[in-house]
């Protein structure tokens, strides 16, 4: 959800600064949280609606039919790809123990770091089993096989839909691009021990190119960027990792000037929208040991 929102914000030209806030129980449940002029909004879909109403709309130039297509493809992503992505991050034992849990735990204060990763892992497993685990699939391994099959099919469908164009609806990025990027980027960039989704993704060169394009165009680091959280000088890889270990982030927010020239971008001088994320206010180089 984090990278999705940032991608969307970049596409639509909304000025966002990423803040990390001090950790608290409630905050972790609700991040990412958008704070703007005392209005607090917590779920990704609602945040997107809010941004649209404020006229930061990346979908301005889409036709009605394309808007409908966007909704349909998002449903496809959530239904087919999301279970497998969640599984890769949180349930797959090797991945979880060697990658997800240490990061997560290093970002939040002791003793929550002992409890919360386990809780999130259990919740994800619960969700997968409840929504996908009915008969005739009776064991966890069968469910896992099915969700990975579905995810691979979904990736194939996305690849066919993208074809050779740069973004899903032509030359400018839209909400759908943000969603797809939000789902694909963690699979693509994070180095897990068990990587069947990543291998499959690598076989679809147009999707890889799509991720790379967005990463290089919109998440480029330059010297003039700064964030209250301090300079993150790690490479884009690490940036993606920290963003997407479930709402933990410590990023530098960079707006690309080209986006500001988009037609619907109104000359706003209102308060900047702050995207708050849970985590310590320190760079990854100063990790607290759990």
């Amino acid at each position: 959800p984090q990278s999705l929102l940032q991608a969307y914000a970049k596409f639509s030209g909304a000025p966002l600064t990423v803040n990390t806030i001090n950790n608290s129980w409630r905050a972790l449940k609700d991040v990412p949280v958008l704070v703007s002029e005392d209005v607090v909004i917590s779920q990704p879909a609602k945040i997107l609606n809010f941004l649209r109403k404020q006229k930061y709309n990346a979908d301005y130039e889409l036709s009605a039919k394309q808007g409908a297509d966007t909704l349909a493809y998002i449903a496809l992503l959530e239904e087919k790809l999301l279970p497998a992505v969640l599984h890769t991050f949180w349930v797959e034992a090797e991945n979880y123990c060697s990658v997800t849990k240490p990061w997560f735990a290093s970002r939040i204060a002791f003793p929550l770091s002992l409890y919360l990763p386990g809780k999130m892992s259990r919740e994800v497993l619960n969700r997968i089993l409840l929504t996908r685990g009915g008969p005739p699939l009776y064991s966890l391994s069968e469910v896992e096989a099915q969700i990975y099959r579905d995810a691979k099919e979904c990736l194939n469908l996305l690849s066919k839909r993208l074809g050779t164009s740069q973004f899903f609806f032509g030359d400018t990025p839209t909400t759908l691009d943000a969603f797809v990027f939000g789902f694909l980027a963690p699979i693509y960039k994070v180095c897990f021990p068990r990587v069947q989704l990543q291998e499959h993704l690598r076989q679809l060169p147009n999707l890889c190119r799509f991720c790379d394009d967005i990463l290089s165009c919109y998440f480029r680091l330059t010297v003039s960027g700064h964030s209250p959280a301090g300079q993150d000088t790690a490479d884009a890889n690490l940036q993606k990792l920290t963003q997407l270990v479930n709402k933990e982030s410590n990023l530098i927010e960079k707006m690309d000037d080209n986006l500001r020239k988009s037609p619907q971008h109104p000359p706003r001088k209102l308060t900047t929208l702050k995207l708050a994320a849970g985590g310590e206010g320190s760079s990854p180089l100063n990790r607290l040991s759990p």
Partner: protein
Amino acid sequence: AAEPWPENAALYQQLKEEQILLSDNASSLAVQAFLQMCNLPVRVVCRANAEYMSPSGKVPFIHVGNQVVSELGPIVQFVKAKGHSLSDGLDEVQKAEMKAYMELVNNMLLTAELYLQWCDDVTVEEITHPRYGSPYPWPLNRILSYQKQWEVRRKMKAIGWAGKTLDQVLEDVDQCCQALSQRLGTQPYFFNKQPTELDALVFGHLFTILTTQLITDELSEKVKNYSNLTAFCRRIEQQYFEGHDKDSSATVAARSAKRSLLR
């Protein structure tokens, strides 16, 4: 899979008059529409324990030859293996689009139907509980329907719908209908001239919503706002369901659903 379609293929669902609920009726009608569009004859058999007979626990399921297949997705694939398919004429991009829209319908419309009938307390008390357990004696009927309710609510909680209010759910339905309406435009079917499984699925859900009487009419009002969708339903009904005297005709199902939900 090389055998031809037998004459005695049967589709099983719950009892039409007293027991079947909105979401199951929608799924069953979708499958019936799909089979009609493929020109494959099937007779509808109503059994109180259809849910338990089904291999996946969901209705409807079809019994063809010596094979049992449940739910629209697997049924479409099964029918394809027998050599009948509605989506062969589509190119790859269109197929991807079709799958995406089918997921949208399942994600939004079906979940909204389930929410309405199991998580909205008024509807649960007055319609769902009496209907769901109606073939069984007390106390079994109450136990079964509470069990099912608990199961559905757990699922809703896992996907995050438990916190939604009825208004939010109705708004999601509206958004979904708007997307479908925009996609359909002025065409007769979603992929212009030929109906596909997407048309069957959309028809199943929308027709059921339009013709089932619930506590309030808000759900059907949302669909009625889009005239091309109601015209779409009427067109499919006329083309594939009227003129048949079989029990499986949608109009009969609709009339009986209306009648019995009035109690």
